[in-house]
């Protein structure tokens, strides 16, 4: 299912112009990270992808649906959206019910919704907590519950707003694995993130935003290597790319392996000499 953002501009009722002429096509199964500083328009853009916001000008379509012609609740069957703050999302009294909330709203029968919920909780490694009250978990765990509650809906498109915020290394690795699973299932994954190293590890395509516009859109290795461009969005390149640049390597390594390959390539002629 393709996502099409066509020449979209959006102005908030207060008069703030948050998006200016943004065009973006995301093909089914793509993994896209949106980066940029606070206020760049990242959240405003993704809120257009499930119809929470409707464009002031332009058009957003998800497959054959124009977001203006469908309610957000209906769009939820196609686009899952995990909010940044878990405490804005959790409404049920147990973790299991919370995760089944979405599938139930999409009209699935209770036993099916329960099965979806159980599977999703296993994915975030919280299956043992399904009878626990969500507020008896820690905030990072609650965030994983909200992740599961959207995974359980089996939407072809999944959007995460700052999924790694507040997570420790184990949590970040877990979310990384979930994203890899979604990619393997050919589902479209879109995240907003400040975690640039995470973005380099898991996302093939990066969209950099500033002042409501798309500054750059392309393969991660290319966008994240442009230190000058990233500087205008107040984002630093990932650690490995910074290191490669400081060492004068031409490559833009996204993983430790890539870095080592680029670095040995450069050193080999030295050694022969």
């Amino acid at each position, binding site marked *: 299912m393709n996502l099409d953002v066509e020449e979209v501009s959006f102005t908030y009722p207060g008069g703030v112009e948050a998006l200016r002429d943004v065009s973006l096509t995301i093909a089914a199964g793509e993994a896209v990270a949106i980066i940029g500083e606070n206020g760049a328009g990242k959240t405003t853009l993704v809120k257009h992808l499930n119809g929470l916001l409707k464009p002031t000008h332009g058009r957003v379509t998800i497959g054959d649906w124009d977001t203006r012609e469908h309610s957000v609740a209906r769009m939820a069957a196609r686009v899952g959206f995990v909010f940044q703050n878990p405490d804005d999302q959790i409404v049920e009294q147990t973790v299991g019910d919370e995760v089944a909330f979405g599938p139930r709203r999409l009209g699935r029968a209770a036993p099916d919704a329960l099965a979806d919920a159980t599977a999703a909780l296993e994915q975030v490694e919280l299956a043992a907590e399904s009878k626990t009250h969500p507020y008896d978990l820690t905030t990072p765990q609650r965030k994983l519950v909200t992740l599961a509650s959207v995974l359980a809906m089996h939407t072809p498109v999944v959007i995460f707003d700052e999924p790694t*915020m507040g997570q420790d290394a*184990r949590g970040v690795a877990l979310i990384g694995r979930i994203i890899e699973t979604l990619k393997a299932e050919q589902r479209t994954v879109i995240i907003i993130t400040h975690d640039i190293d995470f973005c380099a590890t898991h996302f093939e395509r990066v969209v950099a935003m500033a002042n409501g516009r798309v500054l750059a859109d392309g393969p991660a290795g290319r966008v994240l290597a442009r230190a000058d461009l990233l500087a205008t969005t107040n984002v630093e390149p990932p650690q*490995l790319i910074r290191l490669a640049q400081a060492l004068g390597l031409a490559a833009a390594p996204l993983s*430790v*392996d890539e870095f080592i390959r680029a670095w040995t390539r450069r050193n080999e002629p030295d050694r022969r000499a």
Partner: protein
Amino acid sequence: MIQLTNVTYSYPRAETPALHDLSLQIPAGQFCAVIGANGAGKSTLCATLAGFVPHFYRGKLSGTAKVAGIDIAGSSLAELAGTVGLVFSNPFNQITGARFTVREEVAFGLENMGVPPAEMAPRIDEMLRFARLSEQADQSPYALSGGQQQRLAIASVLVMRPKVLVLDEPTSQLDPIGSREVFSVLRDLAATDEATVFLAEQKLEWVAAFADRVLVLHQGRLVADGPPAEILASPTLSQYGLEPTRYTQAARAALGAGFRPQHPDLPVTLEQAVEFFR
């Protein structure tokens, strides 16, 4: 300046202690960072140093915890305020809501301590300069960015001249520029050698940049304690649910591939990594 002896603490109704037999001493002027996975006890330790454990969260505290010679369990929060300053993650919730401008927000603590107005003004001005908020002095605290609000929280606490400043993941809810702004203020603070700072933090690269000493907590226990270069590049880090920086990872991979560097120490920061790979 900070002295913990066999400190064990359990939250009310908790089965296992959040802090387990912790003993440590931090001399005056030291910048000490504590790292650890979520749930390792970093926040609880911060709350203990500021007296919110046990005075706010209740629960059971045993052992002795002293800050600037004051026994924490034996004194009240009101007595500890002004001696220990605490800054936490959420910048918004640290704005008192009782004051109109940034300048008055900084004054709030001094007002409560009964500092004469004539003495307040120079202290506030100095602190606003330090936190780089002089230009925002007459704005509403709510009009500031997250990074500015967090620097305001630091200034509002520092202006009270606490003996110890405790920061509990002060940048975890900020964007990269906000984090950098806060860290640059912390870097200045570390450079003074006067302040005793205790920082809980996830970003190891920053910890390496200015901590004098790093503690590792794991399941409520102190499992490592030493200089940053040694602790942050240690192979045991991953056992405690921590991920070394990409610089350390790359260096370790290079060593595995047979590389013999001139400086054998594993790098933690970019500068060290450049040195290592050169």
